[in-house]
């Protein structure tokens, strides 16, 4: 029986295993050094905040693996012997495979800052990071102040986490406004305000120069590059992005760039080795997507895809339209299609913001063809299916606005803003779009 070994029990590896099991009777082994069972990495923040216990982050009960004949092996792979299709573990034991799927995920970026390896300095990615957080920042007695370096999604989550335990937070953001490499200015500013209103000491255009150590090798302060200011702290969170975790192949002949280089079939240069998820680097970019996408759902999609290939139906990885979501303190964010930080030449924008400054939408469309390109929505939930269909059918911005009631995904009885939004668009563009009534038929595509 063919033996499929998967390194990494994150969403990519586990999805691959589940789908291979659905499609075949192959022997499957998942290898992980991080945890006994699959857990949802995105939920670690809620464990620290006391919303959940760690066991709640595990999407499958512990009996699930045995029942589905998925073997779990705890161990750290030191070396991959591609000649003999064998994994070497740090404990010295070996595991042979017929096909290998690498799904090792990411690790937090460190840019060679002085002091970056001190005690009390860490990223927020793994279960171990969560455990260390409980050591260095369990409360505001042990941790009188925390400094977070890097203004991305993990940075703001870490800020929210520490804030939930009343730990004062200084948030160093390299950019002139939060996440403005991804978000257009208006949204970025809206999030700046949200961060500040939660009492976070937000420092924009601020780089880390160094982290200073106390006599015990523990972080005691950080120095800001621009001002030279020293900020005393007991904890430093490094959240300047993540990069593929390719440590395990140092001595192998698997081709790597930033990540494991894969073709559209998620195959590496070695014929029986595949790479999926955060650690995979596409040799050719897919549409407007980046070659490395450290996003939950892309890991899942690659797992779904590679399972097909491994089970005899060789298919390309063809992700559909871009979408994503996040939550910035109390403001939920969803995006469908593309809304770049800066409009391209052919693009026009429409922006609406609620008077509370907690909700907004930003639509991107082609000013010549009127084709809808993407939407950012903050504080209003919208339907993935609606926009996926719009994007596939290449509908116009007018069509989207006309049917905006069908897009809304907020809970029942929530106040609706479609009229206001369409009126603003009409006023700005001299159009006369009439908002259509909500239609279950269209929403659920019942014919």
């Amino acid at each position, binding site marked *: 029986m063919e033996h499929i070994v998967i390194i990494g029990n994150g969403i990519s590896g586990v999805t691959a295993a589940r789908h291979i099991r659905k499609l075949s009777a192959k022997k499957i082994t998942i290898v992980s050094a991080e945890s006994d069972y699959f857990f949802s990495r995105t939920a670690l923040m809620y464990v620290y905040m006391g919303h959940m216990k760690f066991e709640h982050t595990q999407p499958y009960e512990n009996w699930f693996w045995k029942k589905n004949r998925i073997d779990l092996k705890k161990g750290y792979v030191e070396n991959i012997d591609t000649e003999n299709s064998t994994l070497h573990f740090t404990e010295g034991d070996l595991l042979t495979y017929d096909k290998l799927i690498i799904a090792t995920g990411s690790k937090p970026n460190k840019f060679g800052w002085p002091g970056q390896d001190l005690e009390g300095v860490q990223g927020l990615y793994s279960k171990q990071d969560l455990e260390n957080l409980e050591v260095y920042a369990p409360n505001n007695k042990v941790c009188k102040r925390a400094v977070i370096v890097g203004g991305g999604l993990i940075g703001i989550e870490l800020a929210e986490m520490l804030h939930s335990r009343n730990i004062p937070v200084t948030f160093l953001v390299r950019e002139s406004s939060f996440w403005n490499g991804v978000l257009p200015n208006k949204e970025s500013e809206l999030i700046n305000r949200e961060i500040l209103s939660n009492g976070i000491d937000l420092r924009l255009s601020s780089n880390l120069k160094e982290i200073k150590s106390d006599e015990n090798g523990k972080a005691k302060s950080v120095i800001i590059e621009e001002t030279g200011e020293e900020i005393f702290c007991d904890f430093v969170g490094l959240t300047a992005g993540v990069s593929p975790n390719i440590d395990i192949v140092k001595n192998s002949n698997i081709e790597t760039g930033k990540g494991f280089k894969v073709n559209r079939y998620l195959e590496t240069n070695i014929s029986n080795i595949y790479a999926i998820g955060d650690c995979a680097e596409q040799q050719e970019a897919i549409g407007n997507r980046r070659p490395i996408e450290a996003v939950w759902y892309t890991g899942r*999609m690659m797992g779904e*895809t590679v399972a097909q290939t491994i089970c005899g139906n060789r*298919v390309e990885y063809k992700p559909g339209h871009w*979408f994503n979501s996040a939550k910035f303190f109390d403001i939920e964010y969803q995006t469908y299609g593309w809304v770049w930080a800066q409009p391209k030449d052919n693009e026009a924008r429409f922006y609406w913001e609620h008077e509370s400054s907690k909700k907004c939408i930003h639509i991107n469309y082609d000013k010549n063809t009127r084709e809808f390109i993407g939407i950012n929505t903050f504080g209003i939930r919208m339907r993935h299916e609606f926009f996926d269909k719009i994007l596939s059918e290449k509908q116009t911005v007018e069509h989207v606005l006309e049917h905006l009631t069908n897009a809304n995904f907020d809970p029942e009885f929530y106040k609706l803003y479609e009229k206001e939004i369409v009126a603003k668009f009409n006023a700005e563009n001299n159009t006369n779009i009439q908002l259509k009534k909500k239609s279950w038929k269209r929403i659920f595509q019942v014919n």
Partner: protein
Amino acid sequence: MKHIQNIGLGLFLVGLSIFTSLIFIGKYEVTPEVLENIINNKGIKSELFINSMKSNVVGKEFSNPFTFSSSMISALETANESHKQNSEWDKVIWDKPHSFAYEIVKQSGNGIIKENKWLFWWLTFGLGILGALMYIIPAVIVKGPPGIKNNGIWFNAATNRGWVGWLVFIFLVGFYLLLYFRPSYIVNWTYIVDPISENLSGNLASQWFLYGFLYCVVMTVMAVRMYIKYRHNKYQILRTTSVLFFQIVFAFLIPEILVRFEKPWYDFKNAFPLDYDFFFSWNLDQLIASGGLGLFILIWGIVLTVVIVPVMVYFFGKRWYCSWVCGCGGLAETLGDPYRQLSDKSLKAWKLERWLVHGVLVFVLMMTGFTLYAYFSGAEGVLGIKTQTIQDIYGFLIGSIFAGVIGTGFYPIFGNRVWCRFGCPLAAYLGVVQRFKSRFRITTNGGQCISCGNCSTYCEQGIDVRAYAQKGENIVRSSCVGCGICSAVCPRGVLKLENGPEKGRINPTEILLGNDVDLMDLVNQK
């Protein structure tokens, strides 16, 4: 703000302590007039009992309700035993001993509480309400801006099955045991709500009036908490207002006012089979004897169960009843909300749930079938089983132990919907309709789920919501009461409760939206 909360907590605990200690205060004495009254009202023919009462109880002062009740109960039981031996059936006193004792104790208490009903109302209910509100209201500021603030729930001994939770558990179970099985011990509690009862129904408060009033008070105070906690969520605000309204008006005020006009006590929203004694002969007789209104209630009760309930479930899901109208649901959604995360999400629990809840449904239907057969045929029982016996077993096991002692008492241990999930026959019936013939579903928003597990953790019914959400599959589960909290706690806007066409409502998917269109078609259509 923290100080205000601490003072509030202190006041609440003082109120609670006084309330609890009332049981042990006061004096009891049966006067010859009281005994005379009871004998006449009840038509007691047992001279054994009367003599025993006269020599052992009447004219004596008891300093606590326990010895007082037990001396009367032993008088009653000894008398009954001897009458039964001698087949003097007309002399046997058939009342339940503790209910019987309650009536005498109620008339025999005296002392400080009975003389200062309002004072003690303020010292117990008053302090409790004031303290609780002082604890709850500062959350507006303490917990930060509107939004989901479940911070620290799993670190708090009150909400993570810690020692506070166990103390609350002991208190609640104790309360229900007294209420159902030893009402004669809690007569002092009923004194302090006598003035309110007299204003409403004209009668002195029974233990059930006390319970109804306490229920409304607790729900109101905890509804304030809900209003604050979910002030950003209109679904929750409306839902809370609705359950509160139905509890206070339908379950409390209207029935009491009916009694004032000498009509039968009836809760118009309490549908059979949750209202399990609706078809009991005493109720049918009472309704038929009550003229036009009684007849209306009889027809309404049947139409409610047979037509209104299922039709509404078809359009809106069982939530219209379970989390918008029902009293049990109302308490679960207010007092119980802090405990919702304690429900068991395992597959085992789900299996147990299906056996138990449908078992109770079968039980109640059988009991009702037997009862109606006996009612119309005049027989005492069916297949050699006395209907009275079945009714007693149901009333004890399901009506009291399951719904009350376990259903509410176990809030801090097993979560707030133990009864609704494992025991309620009406929920089982609604669930069948919801699962197979309804427009209600929780829609999953394409591929947005990140499997974080907030939805499953906070599902009071123990549904593993995430298991569906992460597959991009709608949630169509019979046990879902549509409380909407999964949708509220979701950080990615994945879940939406809605009513839509039946077609496509159940949508198992293997490949999620967002992936290759061809692959989705290939796999999902297989």
